[in-house]
């Protein structure tokens, strides 16, 4: 345990960097601020690697699993008699694996950003937000309880908001950041209610389920309900249908941010959440888990189809991310037990794919960033033929494309193969569907690849001052992360991942299912082949023909199946026009008007009767006389009227 006494620094260092740069950032020169943040990140990474190393090299327990450590766990806020909101650090195989993923990608992004963001206004602010994000994401994965996870969940949401809206004078960036926050916040409402239900019936938020199995068993249907609600939150962050719509817009943020947050780390929080609650899912709510799997499969297909027709390279990558997260969710969703040999393979596959995907997708985004940096555009039409000008970017991008397409020996092949094997075990239909989507993935990734690097020779435009603007290779601070991540992508597949992470914690020996592997590679090669035919050369005859042939489908896909329009409709036409406006009107013209009327009534009455006390003796005398008269009449009437009536 004592080797973990420095583990809290993993969270505290980025927090310190955030506070330092956030409060006093402007006192530093931009580069100094960037270097401070990068050095801090390097230190964090070293500590994380050290923690991981000592964790995975420690002796296994007698039952073959790694021990779970909670070196720190403090009561942060008591919530009732039994419930407490704790803050702490939980080390188990998946949280340690996530520490590696997050710190690696974050460090690469920090280094890359030193070059990419050079000269941008708000350089200090950018690094402050990056540190905030890293801190929150690390806090999320080491959470000891579901409430701590929710807390950091919200914090990653806000760092994402701040970074998407980094270019805060750009209307599209403002809108995108707002959309991202509100859509995920809406999903988080489900998460929160799920936590409330879970806490009430189980009496603890802790991830140490074993102590509460009795309460969980007696809670009955409340556990599936709570887990189902929590998954909604997960679907929001992981951009599952129908919450996916914030992610493509989130590409308005700086590209390294997209690589870190919207490809490698934050968007897989939903997957991590399900993995974290996996024992509960397979034990008490398998139906909810399978439902999540179907949603994941649908999202994977849906996003892959859209990715085939987008022309903005970052959006292609965004939809590809959505699709790949769908794969991870499917892998978890098809699990039927905690035994990796019988139906629990998906858990390991999902985590493995999360790991490899984080590396190669970050690589793709950083590569795309280098391209955008060189040609100053996100659109495919402004690219083409770049292989000549940017050799390093080209090679590393190709490596990542091969990995995501599932070509051996790159990392994506191994993890995707496990996912496909798991789905085939669950149901062959699902297996073939996922294989088809894998083929689609290969197709759209190579469509992207060819459109950027081949297709047509690059047209060198004459820039300002008459000199021709030629795209050139990115500086070393930017190519180093590319090379590093490409190297990881080449070797990550050979990591005996199952030794470290598996559904029941025991070492699981990964073996390639030959039939599945051959099928998927063939399908991927077909996808690549079609893409080569259609987009390798400058001629776009086949592509144009297909676009015309499937005009309706093509347009629908380009418009992302009009889900964004539905979102616009709901927010503007329903929330604003149909709910808020009438309520505000009601408030002014009914509730408030009522009280104004009341005051007016008092005023009018007062005006009418104020003459009675005018101070005029004559009028007093008149009233007095009339009063006497009236009383006399009344008295007479009472005394004699009674007799008359008789």
């Amino acid at each position, binding site marked *: 345990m004592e080797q973990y006494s420095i583990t809290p620094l993993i969270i505290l260092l980025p927090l310190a960097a955030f506070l330092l740069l956030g409060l006093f950032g402007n006192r530093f020169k931009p580069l100094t601020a960037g270097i401070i943040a990068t050095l801090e990140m390097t230190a964090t990474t070293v500590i994380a690697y050290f923690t991981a190393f000592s964790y995975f090299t420690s002796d296994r327990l007698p039952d073959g699993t790694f021990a779970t450590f909670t070196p720190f766990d403090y*009561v*942060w*806020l*008591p*919530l*009732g*008699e039994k*419930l407490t*909101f704790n803050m702490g650090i939980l080390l188990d195989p998946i949280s340690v694996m996530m520490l590696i993923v997050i710190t690696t990608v974050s460090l690469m992004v920090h280094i890359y950003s030193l070059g990419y963001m050079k000269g941008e206004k708000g350089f200090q602010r950018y690094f402050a937000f990056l540190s905030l994000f890293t801190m929150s994401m690390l806090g999320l994965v080491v959470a000891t309880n579901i*409430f701590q996870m929710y*807390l*950091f969940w*919200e*914090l990653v949401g*806000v760092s994402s*908001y701040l970074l998407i*809206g980094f270019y*805060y*004078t750009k*209307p599209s960036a*403002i*809108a995108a*950041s*707002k959309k991202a*926050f*509100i859509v995920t*916040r*809406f999903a988080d*409402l489900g998460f*929160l*209610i799920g936590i*409330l*239900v879970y*806490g*009430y019936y189980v009496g603890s938020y802790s991830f140490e389920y074993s102590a509460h199995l009795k309460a969980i068993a007696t809670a009955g249907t409340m556990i599936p309900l709570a887990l189902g609600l929590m998954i909604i939150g997960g679907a929001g962050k992981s951009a599952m249908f129908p919450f996916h719509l914030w992610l493509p817009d989130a590409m308005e943020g700086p590209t390294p941010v997209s690589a870190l947050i919207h490809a490698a780390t934050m968007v897989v929080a939903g997957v991590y959440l399900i993995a974290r609650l996996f024992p509960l899912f397979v034990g008490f709510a398998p139906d909810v888990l399978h439902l999540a799997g179907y949603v994941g499969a649908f999202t994977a297909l849906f996003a892959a189809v859209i990715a085939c027709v987008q022309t903005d390279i970052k959006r292609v990558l965004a939809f590809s991310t959505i699709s790949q997260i769908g794969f991870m969710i499917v892998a978890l969703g098809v699990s039927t037990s905690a035994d990796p040999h019988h139906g629990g393979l998906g858990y390991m596959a999902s985590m493995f794919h999360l790991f490899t995907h984080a590396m190669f997708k970050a690589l793709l985004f950083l590569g795309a960033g280098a391209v955008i940096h060189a040609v100053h555009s996100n659109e495919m039409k402004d690219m083409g033929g770049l292989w000549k000008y940017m050799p390093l970017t080209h090679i590393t991008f190709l490596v990542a494309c091969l990995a995501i397409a599932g070509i051996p020996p790159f990392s994506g092949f191994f993890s995707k193969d496990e996912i496909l094997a798991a789905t085939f075990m669950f149901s062959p239909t699902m297996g073939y569907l996922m294989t088809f989507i894998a083929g689609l993935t290969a197709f759209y990734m190579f469509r992207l690849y060819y459109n950027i690097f081949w297709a047509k020779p690059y047209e060198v435009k004459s820039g300002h001052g008459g000199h021709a603007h030629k795209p050139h290779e990115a500086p070393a601070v930017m190519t180093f992360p590319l090379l590093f991540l490409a190297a990881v992508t080449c070797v990550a597949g050979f990591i005996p991942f199952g030794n470290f992470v598996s559904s029941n914690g025991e070492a699981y020996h990964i073996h390639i299912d030959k039939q599945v592997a051959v099928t998927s590679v063939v399908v991927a090669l077909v996808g690549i082949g079609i893409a080569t035919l259609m987009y390798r050369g400058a001629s776009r005859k086949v592509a144009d023909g297909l676009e015309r042939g499937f005009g309706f489908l093509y347009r629908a896909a380009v418009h992302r199946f009009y889900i964004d329009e539905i979102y616009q409709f709901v*927010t503007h036409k329903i*929330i*604003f026009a149909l*709910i*808020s*406006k009438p*309520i*505000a009107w009601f*408030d002014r013209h009914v*509730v*408030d008007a*009522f*009280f*104004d009327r009341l*005051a007016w009534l008092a005023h009018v009455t007062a005006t009418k009767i104020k003459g009675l006390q005018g101070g005029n003796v004559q009028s007093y005398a008149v009233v007095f006389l009339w009063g006497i008269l009236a009383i006399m009449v009344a008295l007479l009437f009472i005394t004699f009227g009674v007799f008359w009536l008789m």
Partner: protein
Amino acid sequence: MNFLSIFVLIPSLMLLGLWAARNIKQIRAVMVTGASMLMIAAVALAYLYVRARAAGDTSQMLFTSSVEWYKPLNICYAVGVDGISVVMLLLSAVIVFTGVFASWKMKLQTKEFFLWFSLLSMGVLGFFISIDLFTMFMFYEIALIPMYLLIGIWGTGRKEYSAMKLTLMLMGASAFLLMGILGIFFGAGGTTMNILEIAKLHIPIDLQRIFFPITFLGFGVLGALFPFHTWSPDGHASAPTAVSMLHAGVLMKLGGYGCFRVAMYLMPEAATELSWIFLILTGISVVYGAFSACVQTDLKYINAYSSVSHCGLVLFAILMMTHTASTGAVLQMLSHGLITALFFALIGMIYGRTHTRDVRELRGLMKVMPFLSVGYVVAGFANLGLPGFSGFVAEMKIFVGSFENAETFNRVWTIIATTSIVITAVYILRLVGRIIYGEVENKKYLSLTDATWDERLCVIVLVAAVAGLGCFPLWFSNIIDESTLPVITQLMNH
């Protein structure tokens, strides 16, 4: 005389000092000294309170004392504090302190302004130390009257109308309150006005049924209970900055405090029986206020409706009648007090520069006044319940606590109330995206300057308080927890 009376004494000395002050420098000196002394007194009190508790003092109220005032009606000047009052006094001291700096540049009749301001502070501080119904009511009235003048004279916009509206509605409420207090007094046998002693007596249930709604309503109006909240948007919109801060930050809390300490505590049976009516009203407040805020165009109206929503949550949590929720309610009072004061302070500072509060005209403030804009974004995040700020702590405590109440009716309302966290995000981000971000459209704004030192001090103190409460809630939560327990026990025993 008990040392708690220092909270009434300091504002009185400030009044004297202001009366003697000859120029603006002296006025400022008096105000800063007085406000700092209040801060020191509040912190010292908190320290003494915690020490006494740690030493094992388990009586419900500490430092109690009672001086007979008017024998025939058994009216006493009785004071005492528990954890709730201690944190409310801390809140009031912070708001008064920052309020002084927020009105640093007050030019018009400075002396009179601060005189009324100090009187207002005396009212709210006196209210929180009182444990005698009559004293409490008296301080409540002391706090109410200066409001009329402060808004009517130093306000903006339709100030006379708003001042009149606010005063009339709150006076109407205090008429109810007086009725309620007398009902409680005579219902409990007419022997004492001391809350602690009444709590030991039993008010007949028939009387409780009449006087609980009356008392709750009397305090509820001040806590912006739907549909009696309409004084709040107009009143806040017209009030000068420091008054908005003190009013939304502290005075509205008198409502929640009173509902809890007087209405619920002294009439527990009727509270259990009739809480559902008010639960519906407060539940509506929470959602209704948030939706109304979505379409407002005046910065202060947005904040006022947001206050309706968040103060609604205070009353909502109290009515859930669980220990956790009531502690959450007190935390929410603290949190909302600080956040809303921060908001009003910033709006005042922005208005002082741009001379408009219309969100359609403001744009790109980040470029011209970065400090104030960052402050505004932070206030916005705190308001939408971001972890790390006080709002998150209070809301989580309220929601978890409300969920403890297992009645289906309460559950449904709890879930309805939780939706407010999404709606709050909608209007806050709309606002931030609109006025803070973007390019500067009005070229006149380009020459505007950022915050001056007094404004910075005001913002920094409030942000530090909001973040401090949000990051380290344990201490506050614990001292409030032990003080809400007697009330909850009282409610559970009936």
